[in-house]
């Protein structure tokens, strides 16, 4: 891919894909964090 050996292509493109997936999962599993914010406002 792009004139690169397979291992290098994995390094260049594989890690970004991994971090995109990590970020999406993070966004999904932390949906309830908004309760923190709303509650803190109420408490103040």
């Amino acid at each position: 891919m792009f004139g690169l050996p397979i291992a290098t292509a994995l390094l260049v493109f594989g890690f970004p894909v991994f971090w995109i997936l990590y970020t999406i999962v993070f966004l999904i599993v932390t949906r309830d964090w908004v309760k923190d914010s709303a509650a803190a406002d109420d408490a103040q």
Partner: protein
Amino acid sequence: MSYTVIFFLVLYYVVVIGIGYWALRRGSGDSLEDYLLGGRQVGPLTTALTLQSTSMSGYMFLGAGGLGYLQGYWALWFAAGDIGGGVLNMSIIGRRMRKMSQMMGALTSIEYLEKRYPSPAVRLVAGLLTVFLLGFYVVAQLIAGGKGMALVTGIPYPAALAIAVGIILIYTFMGGYLAVAYTDFFQSLIMLVGVMWIMIASLTELGGLTAANNAIGEIDPTLLSVWGRGLGFEGQWGVVAGALLIFSVGYMGWPHVVTRHMAMSQPATARKAGVWATVWNLFFVPAPYLVGILAILILPNLDDPEMAIFQVADKLLPAAVTGLVMAAIMAAIMSTADSLLLQTGSIASRDLYERFINPNASEKQMVFVSRGLVLAIAVIGYAVALVEPPSVFSIVIFATSVLGSAFLPAYVCAVWWSKANTPGALASIVVGASVAFIWQYAGLVDSTQLHPMLTGVVSSSVTMFVVSLATQKISPVPEYVLDAMQVTTTVGPIPGRFLTATEFGLTQEAAAIDKALDGDASDG
């Protein structure tokens, strides 16, 4: 000397100072909390971009480009970890540290450590170590700024250095954290546009990525491998692991970076900030390394590899665009240097001066002392950068490896492991810093093929676990800390007793900690 380049630089400086002035008008210097944390009112996008631009220093335009030029695609191991550094930070400690720091009333990342691990020794050791290492790190930024400006504008190095330092000081003095955060926001955008422009220009010049890679392969096929020029790093997984760790999990041990968590407007700000950090990193992080690699073809006989990106910009771009790229490079340098100066001044004044020398200092006095120390550090940094400028790459790798090794377990365990106690944290900080330092300077990297960051983090983590478990009976974690940790773990409101506690002044808080150490502590 190109007057067009200078025009763009002056324009950039005017805008940055204007933003600093605007932050001043917002009243960011009224209290110590406003000055140090922007009144804890920073939103997700600004949090993400100040986190990233602070982390991405002049190293990205000098060290990263130089590494790509020397080692080819091996350099991308550093970028591979770096892309996820922001979201890792936000997902692991962002929300919890924001919440915990507010409950404990901590205003600096070192004060936070003392309140989580109650002991003046923690603050003293962590404060001294941080001031020393961040001071070192500042010098690297000043050198990068001076060298870059001198090359592109033709201004002599000492004068270029003085201009860069002067501008940083002006807007750091203006509004403290808020000025730094908002100027970082602007600078991160300039950095992104600048680096993308130079990368696209380089690819266009070489006929695209595939053509460029084929041409590099004809010069030396090992430059396309993941093991570096001449396969010099082949099989050295310890070095690779260190390269991945240093800018990914390493962020979580940098006191000047984790302060960003404490300044967020809400704990949940970490969520969107993590997403913005990934988006920005995906575009920005690999580009300087790639430009360095492409410079192998564009400038095959470069004397100083660290100047690869500057030289490529100078060669390929018209003067106006070079001015923009130059502004981007200065933005990377200045956005890190201002944060480093502010944090070094804050830690030296609040965590060392007020805590151990003048406990009765007023908030106005503290701001004054912090600004005075920023000035002193900038002057000393200027002198060092002028007299004996070492390699930017080596300073940054040294400072960030030692910082990450020393503080990573302390910050992570502070919110995730209730058995992490004071002796464990203190031993972890000392052992982590010592191992990373010794590994680097005793030449153990070559003989063991292990990166100092890897050995440093592993040893500090093991020390944290072993010492904490071994000393649970003689040094249990105080009940009020466990209570705060429990609230931090739970997604929900901060109890009123903790919000009231943040109204305490520093002296009262310090006294409470001392009282707790004497065994008289009660909840909250």
